[in-house]
């Protein structure tokens, strides 16, 4: 573990990514405590440009709502959706991939055909359809993002497991009569974890983008403010009031960038070949 942090901190992209993520999480967790006002509240005259009033530093939107407050509350929704939907995708994808890779044969065929069924449908289109059918709400958005993002996890885990199960220590475990569940959980998965972690960090970024795109199209939870919603709502007035779209857009950009950098850092840190070279 110590080794991991050491190599993680040695990669500059990982450090920058971590800083961004920590900041974003801090904003999401503590921001609303500092700005107790609802971001939906109309506080000033509409279309107030940024940097004119200290109370609304980033200006106001079409209804006179504080863009800064919207961004802080939006961080909560965006990160929450990103993390929870990734977690949900892992909960589905990892077991499916592990079983397919470990048992092989008909189980593998069945599970992989099922996975491919999801992979053949363009993921964003599927997400739109799911949210539209389920009615836009935070839970339906998380669910639909999870549904469209688990197949790559399953395929990745399957590949890892396929190669690991032929290793000698796994065969030894089989010979000593350990149960399949035990072998998968104790012997195989821990060793297949590093690529999954890297993938997961990128999935969080993709999920944030997906949520933003859905909200942009008007399929966000109407009761929660999110960055994508702000961009979508400000889009029509971008020529009169650029700040309504630009600030939340930049927030999306930075947090997605941060997560990608973390993914890269993790890749460096967890890849045995690369880290050995560093030593």
């Amino acid at each position, binding site marked *: 573990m110590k080794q991991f942090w050491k190599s993680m901190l040695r990669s500059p992209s990982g450090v920058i990514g971590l800083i961004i993520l920590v900041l974003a999480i801090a904003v999401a967790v503590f921001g609303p405590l500092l700005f107790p006002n*609802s971001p*939906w509240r*109309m506080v000033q005259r509409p279309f107030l440009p940024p940097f004119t009033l200290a109370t609304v530093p980033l200006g106001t939107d*079409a*209804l006179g709502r504080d863009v800064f407050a919207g961004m802080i509350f939006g961080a909560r929704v965006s990160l929450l959706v990103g993390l929870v939907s990734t977690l949900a995708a892992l909960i589905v994808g990892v077991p499916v991939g592990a079983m397919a890779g470990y048992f092989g044969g008909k189980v593998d065929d069945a599970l992989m055909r099922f996975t491919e069924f999801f992979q053949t449908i363009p993921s964003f289109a599927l997400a739109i359809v799911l949210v539209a059918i389920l009615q836009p709400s935070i839970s339906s958005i998380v669910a639909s993002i999870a549904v469209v993002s688990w197949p790559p996890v399953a395929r990745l885990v399957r590949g890892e497991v396929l190669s690991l199960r032929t290793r000698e220590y796994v065969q030894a475990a089989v010979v000593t009569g350990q149960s399949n569940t035990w072998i998968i959980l104790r012997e195989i998965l821990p060793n297949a974890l590093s690529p999954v972690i890297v993938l997961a960090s990128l999935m969080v970024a993709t999920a944030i983008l997906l949520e933003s795109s859905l909200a942009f199209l008007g399929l966000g939870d*109407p*009761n929660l403010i999110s960055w994508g919603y702000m961009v979508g*709502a400000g889009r*029509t007035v971008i020529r009169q009031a650029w700040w309504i779209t630009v600030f939340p857009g930049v927030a999306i950009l930075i947090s997605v960038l941060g997560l990608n950098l973390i993914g890269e850092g993790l890749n460096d840190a967890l890849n045995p070949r690369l880290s050995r070279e560093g030593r």
Partner: protein
Amino acid sequence: MSKRVLLGILLACGLTTLALAQEPKTGGVINAVIQPEPPGLMLAMVQNGPVQMVSGNIFEGLLRYSPKLEPQPELAESWSVSEDAKTYTFKLRKGVTWHDGKPFTAADVLFSIEMLKQTHARARNNLMQVDKVEAPDDYTVVFTLKQPFGPFLGIFEVGSMPMVPKHLYEGTDFKTNPYNNAPIGTGPFMFKEWQKGSFIRLVKNPHYYEKGKPYLDEIYWQVIPDAAARSVAYETGKVDVLPGGSVENFDVPRLSKLKDTCVTGAGWEFFSPLAWLWLNNRQGPLADKRVRQAVMYAIDRDFAKDVIWNGLGKVATGPSASTIKYYTDDVPKYPYDPAKAKALLKEAGYKGEKIRMLPLAYGETWQRWGEAVKQNLQDVGMNIETIATDVAGGNQKIGDWDYDIAFTYLYQYGDPALGVGRNYVSSAIAKGQVFNNVEGYSNPEIDKLFADGAVATPDSKRKEIYEKAQKILVEDVPVAWMLELQFPTITRCKVKNLITTGIGVNDGFKDAWLDK
């Protein structure tokens, strides 16, 4: 008392003289936006807004209406009403031909009425009081009513009762008639071509019965699906006319400031769209009158008008728009007063029960409005949950009464008997249908007033009845009236006389001309 003869044609002459301060020029092409692309152009079969906007040029009604909603001659050149107010005699204009050259006669009127009764729900409803229609000669049509019906002269506008060519439709299956795709009317412009997804092209009717009209050679109705692209099309000069509602409200101030741009809110007097919140009177907190009144006090309607609608429109005072007959503002008032709203909620014992609100899925403006109203209601302590839905889904929920608050706007058609009563009388409660009394308000006194008002004579009696009804309704708040909407029409200033009647752009471009 002798027959009251309304010589509408004299009135029209007077108006024309005024409009002719500047001599109209002939020629030119107008490009206008049509949004959304209409599902068809046969006005007798489909009556969506965009259908009428285009085919109001192709078809005509017996009458049109001034901005004050006085009847004006169109295919009927004069009309008279019998003493008992049960017989209406229309004299038709002579020398009118269909676009294919056949003459327009009383037989076409009789046929149109029979056809519309099958294909046009509102016309069928409007004609319910009609006992029989006869044509003593080719240019006279006589309507005999079962009982006097005050708003009768208000039902002859082209969208409510378009005249259809008998020789092309009689004995055919109306739905599959080939002329639905290339409609033949008597109007100032003829259908030429329709490139689906791109434009609809109309050309001048050279044999139009009003000499010298229309002035324009052609009209192109451009189909541009994206709101932002529509504003750009105007800025780049691709289109000259943006009819009401075709660009987002946020764009209106920017576009109106452009050079040579004229903006008008006129031309909606006949429709008088009135926006309100349907409040479910049957169940939940809103079944309590005090909570409904609190909703009225809690919402800052001036803010909605100034910010969301860019100052266009008017705060509604009650069930009738101020532009329609028998409107009165002598009713209880509900100014923006959050403290009073809170007090009413407390008195009603509201404990923060969840209230579901359906915004209207008609684009940005309505979404923003939903958000502002939600904030207003939350500020006085109401627990509002917004339900996101599309237009069809929203209609279904509202029709099934599965909502607490729902945004809507409805046309009023000039007379309380035509457009207002349907939302408040208990006979208009019909599960599964929208645009009637979906709030479930039921008050025998209101039922009686609207029943009496429709058939009362003379006018002063009707006025008294409807004023009383408005007072009772505003006190009871069956729905929360928001704004009398105005959809500004944006044009280049060189487009003259585009809107001359209370039906506006939907009434055809027969008087419009281009100043070069």
